[in-house]
C-alpha cells in the first residue's frame, strides 16, 4: 500500500469510528430513542406476564420452555421486534437527517460518501445489537423463570447457552442484513416505512412460498441458524434447509450488495430539502 493510501485508510478508519459513535448516541441515547425502547419492552412485558400467569401444570417440564421460546423467537421476536427495531434505526440514519434538515453538515465533512454510508451503517449495527441482544437474553431468561431451579439450570447448561448463542447470532445477522436493506431504503425512498412494511409482508409469507421465492427473503436464510426446529403450520411449503455456510454467504453477500448500492445512491445525493 502506498503511503498516501495508508494515510487515507487511517483517516477513513477514524472517520468511520466517529460516525459510528455518533449514530450510536443518536439511536440509543437521545429523546428520539423512546419508541425503540418501547418496542423492545413489548416482548419483555409479554414474557413477564407469561411468567406470572403460567399454569402450575405447565411449569413442571422446563424442556417445553425451549420449544416455546423457539416459536416466540421465530414468529414474534425475529419477524416483528428485530425487523421493526432495525427499520427504525437504519431508516433514520439518512432519512432522519433529511427530515430534520441537518444532513448537509454530514455531507460537508471531508468523508467520501461511501465511507459515510459505512460509518453510519456500522453505528446502526452496533445500536441494533446493543438494543436487541439484551432483549433476547432477557426474554430467554423470562421464558425459563417460571420453571424454577430446574428451568434455570437448563438455561445455563451448555446446551441452553449454546441455544441462546445461536439466537444471538441470528439477531446479529438479521441486523446486518436488514440494516443494509433499510439504509438503502432510507436513502432512496421519501417514505421508506411503506416499502419496509411491504417487505415485512413478504418475509411473513416466506413459509408459504415455493423454494425459488423463499430464497429472496432474509428469514429463509436466518432460520438456517435456528437451534430448535419449529412447525410452520399445515399450509407451509417445505423446502430443503439451507446449509449454514451458504446461508451466511447469502446474508453477508446481499448485505454487501445493498451497501454498495447505498454508497452509489449516497454519492449522487443532493441536498434539496424542499423537495423532501
Amino acid at each position, binding site marked *: 500500500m502506498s503511503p498516501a493510501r495508508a494515510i487515507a485508510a487511517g*483517516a477513513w478508519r477514524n472517520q468511520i469510528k466517529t*460516525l459510528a459513535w455518533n449514530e450510536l448516541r443518536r439511536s440509543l441515547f437521545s429523546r428520539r430513542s423512546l419508541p425503540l425502547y418501547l418496542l423492545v419492552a413489548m416482548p419483555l412485558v409479554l414474557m413477564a406476564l407469561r411468567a406470572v400467569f403460567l399454569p402450575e401444570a405447565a411449569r413442571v417440564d422446563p424442556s417445553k420452555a425451549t420449544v416455546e421460546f423457539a416459536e416466540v423467537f421465530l414468529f414474534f421476536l425475529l419477524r416483528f421486534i428485530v425487523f421493526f427495531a432495525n427499520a427504525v434505526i437504519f431508516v433514520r440514519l439518512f432519512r432522519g437527517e433529511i427530515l*430534520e434538515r441537518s444532513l448537509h*453538515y454530514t455531507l460537508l*465533512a*471531508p468523508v467520501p460518501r461511501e465511507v459515510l454510508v459505512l460509518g453510519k451503517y456500522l453505528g446502526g449495527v452496533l445500536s441494533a445489537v446493543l438494543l436487541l441482544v439484551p432483549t433476547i437474553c432477557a426474554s430467554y431468561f423470562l421464558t425459563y423463570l417460571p420453571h424454577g431451579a430446574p428451568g434455570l439450570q437448563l438455561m445455563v447448561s451448555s446446551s441452553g447457552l449454546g441455544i441462546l448463542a445461536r439466537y444471538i447470532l441470528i439477531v446479529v445477522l438479521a441486523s446486518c442484513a436488514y440494516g443494509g436493506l433499510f439504509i438503502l431504503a432510507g436513502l432512496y425512498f421519501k417514505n421508506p416505512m411503506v416499502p419496509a412494511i411491504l417487505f415485512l409482508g413478504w418475509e411473513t409469507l416466506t413459509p408459504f412460498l415455493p423454494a425459488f421465492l423463499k430464497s429472496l427473503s432474509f428469514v429463509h436464510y436466518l432460520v438456517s441458524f435456528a437451534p430448535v426446529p419449529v412447525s410452520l403450520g399445515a399450509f407451509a411449503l417445505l423446502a430443503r434447509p439451507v446449509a449454514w455456510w451458504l446461508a451466511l454467504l447469502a446474508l453477508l453477500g446481499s448485505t454487501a450488495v445493498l451497501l454498495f448500492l447505498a454508497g452509489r445512491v449516497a454519492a*449522487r445525493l443532493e441536498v434539496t430539502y424542499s423537495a423532501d
Partner: protein
Amino acid sequence: MSTPSIVLRDVSKFYGEVLGVNRVNLEIPAGLTGLVGPNGSGKSTLMHLLTGLLRPSRGEISILGVAPDRPEELFRLVGYCTQYDSFPHGVTGISFLRYALALQGMGAEEADQRAWEVLEKVGLAEAANRRIAGYSKGMRQRIKLAHAYCHQPQVLVLDEPLNGLDPMGRAEMIDLFAELAAEGRHVIVSSHILHEVDVISDRVVMIHGGSVVAEGEIRAVRSEITSHPIQVLIRCDRPHAVASRLFELSHVVEVRIVDDGLGLLARTRDAGAFFRELNAIVIETGVDVETVAPADESVHAVYDYLIGESAGGGAS
C-alpha cells in the same frame, strides 16, 4: 505559478424543467467576493454547486483544482455556511464543533482546543455548553459560521451570513471576513442586501434569474454598463463654470449643482471620454478641484441599472 482559483465553466443546473442557474462562467480569485442578487436569483444554488451539495446538470467546477464530487479533498479546503437554520437534534455548541473537527481527522484533545478557540472568536464561548436549539437567531448564525470556519479552510462560502446578526455582530463578522480575505483565503459572501456586499466585497458577482449578469471589481462592473449613465461627483470651487462646459459634451445627459453649492453631479454615457475631457475643462477654466469620484459605484446602483425595476422588490 498563478494562484489557484475557483473556476466554473458553462455550469447549468436544472430542477426538472425549472432552471436553477444557467451557463455560468466564472473565475473567482482569492479575496472577498460578493455574490449578489434578489431572493430566488440562484445564489444558493450556485453555492450548493460549489460545495457539491448539488451536482451540475452541465459544465465543470473546480475549487482550487479539486472537483466538488471529491468531498474527501474538497472539505479540507472549503467551509460552507448554508442558509438553512436547522441543526442536528440535541447538540450543544461545543459538541457540534467537536464532531465536525473529529470528522476532519483531529484527535479529541486537539478538536476540543480548536473548538473553544473558534467559539471564542465568534463570541459564543459562554454559550458553548448550551443546546443550539435554545440559541437566538444571531447565535445560531454565529455557530454556523464557526462550523464553516473551524477547520481553517482556504475557501469560505457563506450564504447570507449576516442574517439575524445585530449591528455590532455584523461589524464583527465583517471584520472577520476581511481578516480571512487578507490572509489570502477565498471568501465568497452572498446577500440580497446590497449595501452589505458593497461594504465588504473587493469584487462582485451579480446574479439574476440564474444567470451571471455582471462580475468584476465594483468600479469595473459599473464602467461596463455603457448603456446606462454613470454619475460623477466633482467637488470644486466654481461648479457653474464646469457645468456650462460639461453641457456641451454629447455624452453628458445631466448636470446638477449639489445642495451646498461646492460641487456638481454629472451623468455621462461614456465614462472614459468624460474623464479625459473633464481634465481639459479643468485646465482651461482653471477651477480648483477638490475631488472627482463616481457617485454611484455602490452595488445598489449597478444592480438597479443591470436588473431594472423588476428586481427592485427583492433588494432592500
